[in-house]
């Protein structure tokens, strides 16, 4: 019954400070929004139940600090992620330019077994601001970047208005589910009933 593990889908949200990572998560999980800027410290997650093809999954959504000085312990929580969400602010060019850094940093630290096909999703947030008049990153430009990185799905969102948030996370969940789990497959070579045995080896064999 390996399915117990697969009921949990782990998602990491990354992006520059102030692009709305926490707001997107809060809008999706709690249907709440606050205009006030509050920095995130370290990393924490909220969960939400999602239904995909009549099956119920728990989405574990990790919100992270965009400011580097609030990430003092490092990024060990990237481990085992099923999908990585890259967020930028359509009104801030720099936040878009940095997407590449976030993506590469994630691949480097999480080191998924198949980096080429690891599911990412890009969200261009804050499309509501100033009726879109202040945006500096065009949809075309963002889509072109996504296409160049192996057709990353792209959504334009407004955490404030709740625009596209549900759809984006539905897509995130679907893609997370498609990701092959790469939990280290572990088989003990000796059955040590008392536990605590240290003469262990990792097996490279298959799951069955």
């Amino acid at each position, binding site marked *: 019954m390996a399915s117990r593990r697969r009921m949990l889908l782990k998602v990491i949200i990354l992006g520059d400070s102030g692009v709305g990572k926490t707001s997107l998560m809060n809008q999706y999980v709690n249907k709440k929004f606050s205009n006030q800027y509050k920095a995130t410290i370290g990393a924490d997650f909220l969960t939400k139940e999602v239904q995909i093809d009549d099956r119920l999954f728990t989405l574990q959504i990790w919100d992270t600090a965009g400011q580097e000085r609030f990430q003092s312990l490092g990024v060990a929580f990237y481990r085992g992620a099923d999908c990585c969400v890259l967020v930028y602010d359509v009104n801030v060019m720099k936040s878009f330019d940095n997407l590449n850094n976030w993506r590469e940093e994630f691949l480097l630290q999480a080191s998924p077994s198949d980096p080429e096909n690891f599911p990412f999703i890009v969200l261009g947030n804050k499309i509501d601001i100033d009726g879109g008049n202040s945006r500096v990153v065009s949809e075309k430009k963002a889509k072109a970047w996504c296409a160049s990185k192996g057709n990353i799905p792209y959504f334009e969102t407004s955490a404030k208005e709740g625009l596209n948030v549900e759809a984006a996370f539905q897509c995130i969940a679907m893609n997370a589910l498609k990701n092959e789990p790469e939990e280290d497959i*572990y088989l003990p070579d000796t059955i040590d009933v008392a536990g605590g045995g240290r003469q262990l080896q990792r097996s490279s064999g298959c799951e069955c």
Partner: protein
Amino acid sequence: MLPHGDDEEKWLAEGIAGIQHNAFYMHRALDSNDLKDALRYSVQMLSELRTSLLSPHKYYELYMRAFDELRKMEMFFREETARGTISVIELYELVQHAGNILPRLYLLCTVGSVYIKSKEAPAKDVLKDLVEMCRGIQHPVRGLFLRSYLCQISRDKLPDIGSEYEGDADTVNHAIEFVIQNFTEMNKLWVRMQHQGPTREKDKREKERSQLRDLVGKNLHVLSQIEGVDLDIYKETVLPRVLEQVVNCKDELAQHYLMDCIIQVFPDEYHLQTLETLLGAFPQLQPTVDIKTVLSQLMDRLSNYAASSIEVLPEFLQVEAFSKLSNAIGKVIEAQVDMPVVGAITLYVSLLTFTLRVHPDRLDYVDQVLGACVKKFSGRAKLEDSRATKQIVALLSAPLEKYNDIGTALKLPNYPRVMDHLDNGTNKVMAVVIIQSIMKNTTCISTADKVEALFELIKGLIRDMDETQDDEIDEEDFKEEQNSVARLIHMLHNDDPEEMLKIICTVRKHIILGGPKRLPFTVPPLVFSALKLVRHLQGQDGDVIGEEISATPKKIFQILHQTIEALLSVPSPELALRLYLQCAEAANDCDLEPVAYEFFTQAFILYEEEVADSKAQVTAIHLIIGTLQRMNVFGVENRDTLTHKATGYSAKLLKKPDQCRAVYACSHLFWVDEQDGIKDGERVLLCLKRALRIANAAQQMANVTRGSSGPVILFIEILNKYLYFFEKGNPQVTSSVLQGLIELIKTEMQTDGSSDPSADAFFASTLRYIQFQKQKGGAMGEKYDPIKI
């Protein structure tokens, strides 16, 4: 014994292996719904977290492994209790039988999460129990991670307003109480950590503590996310309690970090409305805390908030944010006597940025900040810390950038006082910044008073500031600086002649002190600026004659005379000579014969007494001839005197060819091709003949000395002069004279052994010209007809 490098990797690997091993059996137990075994293996798995061998980073990796496994346990607990195999209360009791306290508490928190979710007990009670139980772990690293686990699993189960776990009327307070208690305990563990272990590993421990800081800070993030924490509750409960903890822990690292966290995690509005409380904490912090960085971050944050929308500005006014911040900074600087000057200035820069954004109309605030800086500097020697001076440049540049108008800065009494405290180098940098701002915005400085103030500001560029002649000054830099001053002088302008004259006098007063190195850069732009005024007055043509005015061309010429004289001390006679000639020409246009004559006299005196280099003499004499040729103001007598001198000096130049060329140039002094111009054909011819004689002499000299080629080219040049006057109708220059000269040149060229290609070409094209004129027909053709080539 603390781990190093490879050892640590090994221990981590062993820890991970232990977790994987037990997790394997735990999964099997879960798959067969065997609660007893599941608990047993999870306890063994969690025992791996009892290690003391790992640094926080590595421990975090281990913790994350266990964390992921615990999610499966949590799901299992939920399923089991849902199926009714066991009640959540029983489960809560059951896990407490685990032998080791750390695994027991991890499991308890995990069940606690399910317990709250089940709503079989009020969230606040379960949370209270958990946060109390966690006291059982007093090892800092293990305790911090355990409590961070509690923080995480309770994150979405706080009895917040609007949450599904909302309780009685006091519900938010329970939520806050829980988080603050956890925060307080974590902070204690974190602070205490520095005292554990040998002193020699203090640095390493501080580094590890620094890595752990976000575990503590995360509680503040959770607090800020609680919906029920409105401004009132924040003001009355949250902020005072958090600050109490921060102040009382008396730990440098914690205080700096937590103040930063408070500023970053809570919203701008809250900070504005609690500024007094927040700022009140700063003087209570340890003296070693880097308050300036934190305060600067607060001000930067508020500045950005102010800039975000005009609608929020009234909030700032209402709470008198500026005076509060200004006060707080004053107190901090007073309290921290050891704070380096750069720290104080950094604070003032932030405050200035703040006020420029929030109160752009309050120049008095800007001046107040500058004044505070001056106060801080008073009694000190000039600043030499490069970081400090860099900050001052930022401080002084900010108003210029904001207002794009030096006029505004000139209105600030404290602005020059701050500059007085800069070392000479920085003073100059700042002066250049000021000039660049003026140039960039093409700001016209239009009154003498402003000019006075401006020159006071940039005095570092205008004169030497101390006795020690700076030998290390880079020549290029110096030139660049002085060129910028020269550019600046052209930006000082007023259409009113009286005011403009005052401006000129003010500038003169300052630049005259510049010393020999600067004058050659600064005098010319001033001279031309004054001449511009002269032309302006001349254009008005005596409208104001008879009035009590001082701005007359005569008066200006007098000033110019004195100004140019200053160049003699440099000495820079060639430049002075040029400028005298410029003035003479302007005086000519103003119809001021005595003045023009005086300038010429000065030019000649310079030529006689100061211009010694033969090349410089050649240049100077040609300038004199050229200028004199254009003068029409002189009466016969004056003119004769000057032309006589000019031709005399021409003939006395060092080298024959130079003599020859200057003398034939003098011929133009006697033939001005204008309506009423002088046309003295005889004297023209005298000059040309004299030039010929000199050319002959030069030829002979060349033959003697080198026995070879002479300067035939001089003859050709003279021929061209003849042609000019021939065409202009000088009766003395006839076709036969020309014919003779052509023959002469031909003979010369034949006898001359080696040929000079450029002379050949010149002669050929001269002949071609004559040919062309002959063939043109008409009057000119007839005139040329007799000449045979």
